[in-house]
Structures are given as structure tokens and as C-alpha cells.
């Protein structure tokens, strides 16, 4: 399905997430489902939570028990395929990579967008970070209702 539509199946998405009990702390969700020659997520991880191995074509495996949610892999992933997720009470908190010209401001409420490009929820922008080390990838902190934990992937101006 992914290779026909570009949208991962629900089961693939669920498999990329750890048990929700892990998400009291921020964790990296890696949506890299295809064996491509690439390993910056592994080499950028400061705690060794991500494993690809000598064959750089292997799909990354993340140990969510080790992952600190630091977000190094988010701006280092060339495929924009990693985001950081946590749950706080009835909210889902995200840190997403963003490379579009229209950049939101802190406090803005934009549309929360799903993996098929459709609007799924309201998304509050809680922080906008642009740093030299991110090399032009903006990192957005976004808050949505917890219901959209598995649905939200990016934001768009309403």
C-alpha cells in the first residue's frame, strides 16, 4: 500500500510507536519502512538507541527504552521520516521537522494534517526552533488532542 499511495498503513504506523506507557517521556517515532541505503539516524543518535548496522540498507530499529527523545535524529533524517512524540494528560505533544516556506509562529493554531494530506485536527504551535545545526530544517513543537496521536504528522496554515 505504501508503495502504491505513499501513505503507510495504519498497522505500520502503530508498529512504529512504542506502547503508550513509554510516551510519558518523549520518544522518537521512525517511519522508515523501506530498505534504502541510509543511516544518519543511527550515527546521529547520542545514546545508541537506533540500530541499522554494517549494511546501511537495513531498516532502522529503535529501542524506545533507551531513546531519550533528544531529537537529533529528527533534523538529521534526510527523509523527514522521524518525529518525537509524548503524551501529557489528554494532549499529544509532537516535535516535527518542517521545511516549507510558510513558517508558523509560537501560539498559532494551524490545521493538524494526516499522512494523506487531509486535515485531521487543530494543532497548537508551542515552539518554533531554527538552529544552525538543523541546517535549515525548522523544528516545530505542536500540541494536539491525544486522540490524534497516530493521525497527526504535520501542520498547514488554515
Amino acid at each position, binding site marked *: 500500500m505504501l508503495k502504491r499511495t505513499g501513505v503507510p498503513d495504519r498497522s505500520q504506523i502503530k508498529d512504529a510507536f512504542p506502547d503508550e506507557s513509554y510516551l510519558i517521556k518523549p520518544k522518537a517515532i521512525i517511519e522508515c519502512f523501506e530498505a534504502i541505503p541510509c543511516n544518519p539516524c543511527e550515527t546521529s543518535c547520542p545514546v545508541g538507541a537506533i540500530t541499522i548496522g554494517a549494511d546501511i540498507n537495513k531498516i532502522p530499529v529503535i529501542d524506545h527504552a533507551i531513546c531519550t527523545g533528544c531529537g537529533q535524529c529528527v533534523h538529521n533524517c534526510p527523509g523527514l521520516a522521524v518525529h518525537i512524540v509524548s503524551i501529557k494528560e489528554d494532549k499529544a505533544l509532537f516535535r516535527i521537522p518542517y*521545511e*516549507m*516556506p510558510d*513558517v508558523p509562529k509560537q501560539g498559532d493554531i494551524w490545521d493538524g494534517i494526516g499522512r494523506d494530506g487531509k486535515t485531521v485536527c487543530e494543532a497548537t504551535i508551542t515552539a518554533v526552533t531554527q538552529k544552525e545545526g538543523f541546517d*535549515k530544517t*525548522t523544528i516545530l513543537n505542536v500540541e494536539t488532542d491525544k486522540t490524534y496521536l497516530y493521525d497527526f504528522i504535520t501542520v498547514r496554515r488554515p
Partner: protein
Amino acid sequence: MGMRIQNHPILEFTEKKPVRFFYEGKQMVGREGDTIASALHANGINVLSRSVKDNRPRGFYCAIGNCGSCQMRVDGVNNVRTCITELTPNMHIERQRGLADDQT
């Protein structure tokens, strides 16, 4: 149609110096760093040449000097690949018709 990119997340297109040139005798303005083809595009000119046999309109295709579909007459020189030739001030750019040799 063609137009300048206003706002870009990765690249910085800082306002560059305008460059005056002439297309079929008409004065136009491009920018420093333009190729002839990009300057024409930004001025709304897409038809860069005509096919030899049927006189069909041609634009550029590859933009790296391979295909030859963008060849024009520049300052009196025929068959200049406008996609890889930088625009310089006061260039005179004309369309060629048929085989360029017919006009020289």
C-alpha cells in the same frame, strides 16, 4: 509564465542587481546570476525557438546544455545554448527560425 521565487525555506534569493537586455529589440530586465533562458522565463517568454520543419514553438527542456531546444541568436551569434549561458548587460537576444544558417 514564469516568475521569481519570493520566499524559500532552504535557499536565499537575495535581491540581485538588475541586468538590462533586449529581446527582439524590446528592452527587458533580468537579474545577475540569470541564464538567458531564466531571464526570458521571468519575463514571460517561453517560446525560445521554432522547429525547423513545421515551425512549431519550442521552449527549453533540459536546462543543462544537452538538448538544444533553447538555442537562440545572441549578439549576432547563432545557436547559443541559452540555458547555460549567463545573461550579461545589454545582450541582444533574438529567436531563430528554421535552420540558423538561413539567416546569416
